[in-house]
């Protein structure tokens, strides 16, 4: 197809090792005008599979987290809700033409992406909160064993209006508009079944995203965040740390899912920006510029805590050392982090409301986030951060095939 639009594409070019697509890309590069194809708007993430997309998927630039209350009152309403969600999210992920609307009726699609919905790298990951397993739907016996309401840690100032929820959808894509479009589609498709409870949007710098993990994002404190993350491309690592397996003592339906933690962590940036650089670095345990552990030179150097038992290089209270002490036994506490930055209004005190939309996944919530967070309790960084919302959720196992639906194992379990 492409060669038709480039008459000078000859057999010699092809034999010379240039695929038609690569050649077209070069031809386009000359005028440098992005097209739908080159801007990534046609990139598609798979919807079907043993796990939901959006967990080990490389992070695109824009994220939208929405927690919902399930308004359905009867168990019998849950299956249609899950069917509708599955159908809508499968379509939104794939993209395609929106149905035509009779002019006298409200349009089915919001239209904010135009007459053709672009896949735009969208993933929509559905997880359930502990409250879904309360008295309403008779699901109590199917509750994943670590799933409870997010507890308050000592430095938290949780706002009930931004916490918990029966269900959470994580939308990630290249653009805020694609996420919002997907959210509005879901809301339109589930009247009487779902009510949004809280919502927060996150972002990452697109130029860093393009390096697919080779470069590390900086958080609102100006430090690289996520350097020592698990390698999401290694299936053995993911099977050990992220995906619930047969041997985790979880209900059978939960196999293939993952515990998801979402924490809205406000960073008190004005105060941070008035803190000496040396103190900032000591609190985090890394050089601010390079991201290297203190007294080392490269971001990905491994800190040698055995050679630094008294914390002369990296303080014993430094964030990176508490989070991952690299001691025998603590390797069980590793988690897959997938955080975004956020920024919204101004606080009541007139300071910037921004920070980290911390998200992590793990096969065992207790061994993972809860253990790590308890180790972090009392860290020096606490003076500069204030977790204000979020919750514990369980990301449902994947939808194997088009005839399957999200959560069907859960609904069949009790």
């Amino acid at each position, binding site marked *: 197809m492409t060669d038709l639009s480039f008459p000078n594409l000859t057999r010699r070019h092809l034999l010379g090792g240039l695929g038609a697509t690569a050649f077209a890309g070069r031809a386009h590069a000359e005028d440098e005008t992005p097209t739908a194809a080159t801007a990534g708007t046609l990139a598609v993430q798979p919807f079907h599979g043993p796990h939901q997309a959006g967990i080990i998927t490389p992070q695109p630039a824009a994220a939208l987290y929405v927690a919902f*209350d399930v*308004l*359905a*009152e009867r168990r019998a309403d849950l299956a249609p809700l899950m069917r509708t969600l599955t159908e809508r999210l499968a379509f939104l992920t794939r993209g395609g033409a929106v149905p035509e609307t*009779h002019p*006298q*009726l*409200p349009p089915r699609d919001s239209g904010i992406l135009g007459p053709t919905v672009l896949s735009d790298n969208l993933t929509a990951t559905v997880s359930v909160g502990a409250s879904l397993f309360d008295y309403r739907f008779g699901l109590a016996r199917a509750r994943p064993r670590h799933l409870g309401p997010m507890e308050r840690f000592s430095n938290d100032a949780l706002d009930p209006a931004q916490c918990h929820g029966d269900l959470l959808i994580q939308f990630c894509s290249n653009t805020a508009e694609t996420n919002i479009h997907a959210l509005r589609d879901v809301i*339109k498709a589930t*009247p*009487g*079944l779902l*009510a949004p409870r809280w919502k927060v949007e996150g972002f990452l710098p697109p130029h860093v995203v393009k390096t697919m993990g080779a470069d590390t994002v900086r958080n609102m404190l100006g430090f690289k965040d996520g350097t020592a993350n698990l390698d999401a491309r290694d299936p053995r690592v993911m099977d050990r740390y992220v995906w619930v397996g047969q041997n985790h003592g979880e209900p059978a339906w939960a196999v293939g899912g993952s515990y998801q933690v979402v924490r809205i962590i406000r960073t008190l940036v004005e105060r941070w920006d008035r803190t000496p650089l040396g103190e900032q670095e000591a609190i985090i345990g890394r050089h601010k510029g390079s991201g290297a552990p203190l007294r080392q030179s490269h971001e990905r150097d491994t800190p040698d805590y055995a050679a630094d038992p008294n914390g002369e290089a990296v303080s014993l209270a430094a964030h990176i050392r508490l989070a991952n002490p690299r001691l025998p036994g603590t390797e069980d506490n590793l988690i897959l982090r997938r955080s975004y930055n956020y920024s919204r209004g101004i606080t009541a005190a007139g300071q910037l409301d921004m920070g980290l939309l911390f998200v992590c996944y793990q096969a065992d919530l207790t061994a993972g986030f809860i253990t790590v967070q308890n180790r972090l309790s009392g860290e020096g960084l606490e003076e500069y951060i204030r977790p204000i919302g979020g919750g514990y959720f369980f990301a449902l196992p994947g939808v194997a095939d088009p005839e399957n639906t999200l959560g069907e194992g859960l609904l069949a379990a009790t």
Partner: protein
Amino acid sequence: MPEISHRDRDRCCVAGIGVALLLSLGDVRPAGALDAPASTRIARAARPIALDLAAALAAYKTYVVGQADAFVRETARFVAAIQGGRVAEARGLYAPARAPYERIEPLAALFPDLIKRLDVRSDEFELRERDPAFVGFHRLEFALFALGTTEGMGEFAERLAAETVILRDRMTAVAIPPAKAVGAASALIEGIASTKISGEEERYSRTDLWDFQANIEGSKVVFVLLRPLLDDHAFVARVERSYKRIEDLLARYRAPDGGFQSYDNLTARDRNALKGPITLLAEDLSTLRGRLNID
């Protein structure tokens, strides 16, 4: 064909229902009408609905004027209590006086200048309650329920009474556009969904449930009048179910005196329970104009 006769009965009922509705300000469920079988399915193009529609709209106009009239009467009692300095009595008359207005609120919106004097809320002003343009019902609500006084309210009350008369006169004179009349069914529900379920409307008196009830009644009047013209049985049944669910939920919060409990008594879960059928109803009623081919 028994279905045809049901349908004809439904049609004949349209004008009658309208009158029946006018006579019952509180309960808008006309005897038998809800239980009547839904109209038969006939091809939309072949359906001679124009006359039926005209009859329904005429009945609705009568209803609207009736409510505007009741609004004048009820507000006069409320205003008299304020002018007499009787705080407790005025508090008790506040929500009932508003009910007729809340039943026809989208029609009152034909006169934006008027509703800004009748029903404006303090949060529409940067200065909130201190803004001199904060007048009307909520200004009096603020005095009665937040400040606990009628002091200085005489003039506000008198102006309010005069506005209700203007509203009734304009409502009597105006030709209600069909789209506006049909759209009132959903507009009343959208009002609940967008700002009322949050408790913003009656923030001092906490009489929000009175408004909900009146909004639902006003919305249902439109639906019941138009129902004989709708041939989608599943749609009609779903809408009726949603109304019923909301009515049943509201009935739980009735006070012994026939009014409603304070909206503060409802938990987040209670409010969510209302959100479900209200959202479903809003979605369904948003197709009403299209179903009736009204632009």
